[in-house]
């Protein structure tokens, strides 16, 4: 796929921070989910993965963050081959992953949840600074600081999760449907943060079902189907493609009625 293009602001042909090369992966004895998948995420870029349910998007992120070992293929982070390493090593190589669905620590307080986001950090001042930042970004986090996270509403939990992932500054961020369950206002905040991270030099691999919105934010887009990248290209081009819209982005609003 194309890695060096578009958006005149970024310099071309920068070395990608995350590369998945011809990856095959699957769960247990079931059939392979990813079959020869390749993705590259350059720095200062948001790559958006879209595709039908069950296409393997989450699986891609799991392989990238080391939660799932690929059966074949390579995972490269910032130039070094990290295939088969576990999540802790991946995190050390500068890669963070926010899971799909709900992954707060339900029986721990919001405070503990957020501080666990900084588990690898030792610098107290920095942690305090970050805490202040996420509390401001998501007011609910500050308001419910001492409450058990599992008692928050669905969307509030997602906010805590996102806040948790903002505690560190990774080189590569994998986001699995960060906007799911969030109200429109908060969704906007989340997408702002994604842009901010991108602008700070982070490579973002974003999976979204809110595909229009995501592609509007993203630089590059990949359409995943049957465990392979089906089509990829600049996000704007994908958005413009009538047929793709119909297939994967739900057509135009009201057009199905």
């Amino acid at each position, binding site marked *: 796929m194309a890695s060096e293009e578009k958006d005149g602001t970024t310099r071309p042909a920068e070395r990608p921070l995350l590369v998945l090369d011809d990856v095959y992966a699957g769960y247990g004895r079931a059939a392979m989910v990813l079959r020869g998948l390749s993705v590259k995420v350059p720095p200062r870029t948001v790559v958006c993965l879209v595709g039908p349910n069950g296409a393997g998007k989450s699986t891609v992120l799991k392989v990238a963050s080391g*939660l799932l070992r690929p059966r074949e293929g390579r995972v490269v982070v910032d130039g070094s081959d990290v295939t088969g390493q576990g999540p802790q090593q991946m995190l050390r190589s500068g890669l963070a992953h926010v899971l799909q669905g709900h992954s707060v*620590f339900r029986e721990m307080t919001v405070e503990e949840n957020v*501080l666990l986001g900084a588990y690898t950090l030792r610098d107290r001042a920095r942690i305090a600074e970050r805490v202040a930042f996420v509390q401001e970004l998501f007011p609910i986090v500050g308001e419910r600081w001492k409450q058990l996270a599992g008692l928050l509403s669905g969307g509030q939990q997602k906010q805590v999760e996102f806040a948790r992932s903002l505690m560190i500054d990774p080189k590569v961020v994998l986001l699995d449907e960060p906007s799911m369950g969030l109200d429109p206002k908060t969704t906007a905040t989340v997408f702002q943060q994604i842009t901010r991270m991108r602008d700070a030099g982070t490579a973002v691999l974003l999976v979204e079902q809110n595909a229009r919105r995501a592609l509007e934010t993203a630089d590059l887009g990949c359409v995943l189907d049957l465990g392979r990248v089906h089509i990829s290209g600049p996000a704007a081009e994908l958005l413009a493609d009538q047929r793709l819209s119909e297939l994967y982005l739900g057509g135009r609003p009201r057009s199905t009625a």
Partner: protein
Amino acid sequence: MDGTLLFQSLVLGVLLGGLYAILAAGLTLYFGVMRVVMIAHAAFVILAAYLAWWFHRETGLDPLFSMVLTVPLFFVIGVLIQRVLITRLRPATLTMMSVLLTFAIALLIEGLLGLFWSGTQRRVQLSYSGDNFEFFGARIAVVKLIAFGLAVLSLALLFLLMKKTRFGLALRATIQHREAAQLVGIRTDWVAGIGFGIGLATAAIGGTALSLDATIYPSLHWSWIGPLMAIIVVGGLGSIPGTAIAALVLGVGQSLLQVELGTTWAQTLFYVALFLTLMLRPQGFFGGRLAQRF
């Protein structure tokens, strides 16, 4: 009941409660925090008591010194059990299957104890086993006081470890959402293993304390596991202070009831308390998390 007997029973109850507390502390750690129902905990306690007895018989040294060996040994065994066995269980059925798996471990320990040291009842023969001193008209046995002291000390350590260290945080996170914990950089397999090791280390301490003033035999653990389970439920699963308070209350209660009702009926106190707790306050009386939901 006259005053001295009442006070004597009270004193005995407090001392007994201390022992209950340390024996139950590990159990609440696995159960409340790690969601493993560790039926074999009492078996490990008895194993530790056997090792203390054996150590004393072989070396002639005070059985308390056996802890130098048993505490690290149990820690390692705990880590291994978690890393080799418990991790193999499916998360969906962890609670149920852990009951059966640890039941098997309990049987295994019982069987091996019987194999090596026979079913005979054993008792450490200490020169000071009958020593006692007066305390406001009651008598306190030296051995019981030592056991009580050990319990208090190790409970305090355990509490600090869980509440004040990063380890405690990491352990709880690991149990609640393993993948998410991995993704914030926690080495989940080691954390869970070490948590288990610590639980078993308390069994080593508790077992040694027990061995000072009790008779042991391989199947003894069955008579301990019931009361210990009741204590951790009443105290609130996962809550160490809760466990300590429940242990003291039930220990004193048992001690006092025994005078009026006799030992058999007095033992039902634990189960009555257990049922009442689950009916009225499933989260336990002294904090801790909801007992009924897993």
